[in-house]
């Protein structure tokens, strides 16, 4: 629902490999636009007034009784409180099982030659630091626009995204939240279509 009082307060582009820390007040809407398609946007949420109160991927998955996130998914905290709701989604589904890339997990997945490639965990720590978000505060994240199918046999794979240029997902904050974003620089798997690209953030609130 668009209020006449709402103004566009954020309209910014996040380059691949860069990040953002955005405070969205209760009732505010934050839209992430996949400008060029197939771009994973690793995202964490925190209660803006208590960073120990944070997004919990597995609590969110269990309480909705389904793996994928889409319109209507309630993004729950580690205390089972609602932090935000996905209120619009033109992509269709998003991952929250696959975690974020890190230099260390890149070594595990792709070999030691990837040790010094840039990774989401570095971006999370850099952009989180001013809010006091450190290693202990990094929970398991959302990967908007990323496609991680799971099967009844219990297998999990990374596949080409379902997203396309201009697709977007929109969150409405249930309480004042900090949204910590890493626009994923991963080059070693298809989650960014082998070519990380920019995304746009649009925010509306009073």
């Amino acid at each position, binding site marked *: 629902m668009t209020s006449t009082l709402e103004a566009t307060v954020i309209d910014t582009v996040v380059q691949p490999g860069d990040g953002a820390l955005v405070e969205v007040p209760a009732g505010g809407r934050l839209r992430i636009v996949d400008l060029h398609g197939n771009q994973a946007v690793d995202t964490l949420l925190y209660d803006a007034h208590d960073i*120990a109160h944070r997004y*919990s*991927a*597995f*609590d969110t*998955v*269990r309480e909705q*009784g*389904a*793996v*994928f996130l*889409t319109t209507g998914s309630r993004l729950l905290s*580690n*205390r*089972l409180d609602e932090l935000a709701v996905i209120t619009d989604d033109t992509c269709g*589904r998003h991952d929250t*099982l*696959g*975690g*974020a890339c*890190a230099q*260390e*997990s*890149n*070594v*595990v*997945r792709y*070999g*030691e030659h990837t040790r010094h490639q840039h990774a989401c*965990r570095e971006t999370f720590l850099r952009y989180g630091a001013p809010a006091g978000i450190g*290693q*202990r*505060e*990094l*929970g*398991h994240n959302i990967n908007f626009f990323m496609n*991680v*199918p*799971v*099967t*009844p046999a*219990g*297998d*999990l*794979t*990374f596949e080409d995204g379902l997203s396309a240029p201009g697709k977007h997902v929109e969150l409405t904050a249930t309480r004042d939240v900090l949204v910590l974003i890493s626009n994923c620089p991963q080059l070693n798997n298809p989650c960014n279509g082998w070519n990380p690209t920019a995304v746009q953030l649009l925010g509306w609130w009073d």
Partner: protein
Amino acid sequence: MSWAHEVPGGAAWSTPVRAGRLVTLTALGDDANVSVLLFGADRLDRLNVPDTMKAQMSARIRPPMVLMSDRGLALASVVSSTSDWHDCLTGFGHDAHLERFGPSSYAADRNDWRRSARSGLISELTKHGLGEADLHGPVNFFSKVAIADDASASLAWQAGHTTAGDQVVLRTEQDVLLVLSTAPHPLSGAAYGPAGVQVEVGSAPWPAEDDASWLFRDESARALEMCRRVVA
């Protein structure tokens, strides 16, 4: 030398375990659930279920997978198990999941007081100078939450997945802190009566050349190798 401890159902417990030990969890009843958190030798690095899953292309925990940390190190390897599916997708139970059983307190129920996995895990973490911030996605040993072949990948807890006597054996790859709760699985629809679990710790033989976890996948071997470099 080995030792064993029986954790009753609905309880929480923690213990440091040295590298190179076999930790055998044995279900003492049907439909047991053991929600397990793991910390590395520095008590900061911790189990990372997403990384464990994506490195080994599995949405369940089974032998011979390697349980991996935030820093890409092996914490423990799953040496063997009578079950090929241990849930790692649905977290541990909260107080809200016990509400359907009615009120419970120490005053009314003494040590049959019903407490959630979350409250028990935080209590154990606090004993080690850790706390809520250190909670992470657990492995729910002995539980299965099946994944449907539908658009949202719906989830459903499976009754009867394991029975008394079922086992899983872990080999610690570095000094770890094992933190666990035997509270009911949060999706369990069963009447209250969580099974206990026996935890036995003994020494592990040095991994052989044909060790199943080292040979499982290149990713598993690299996590073990990176751990070996730190531990050795």
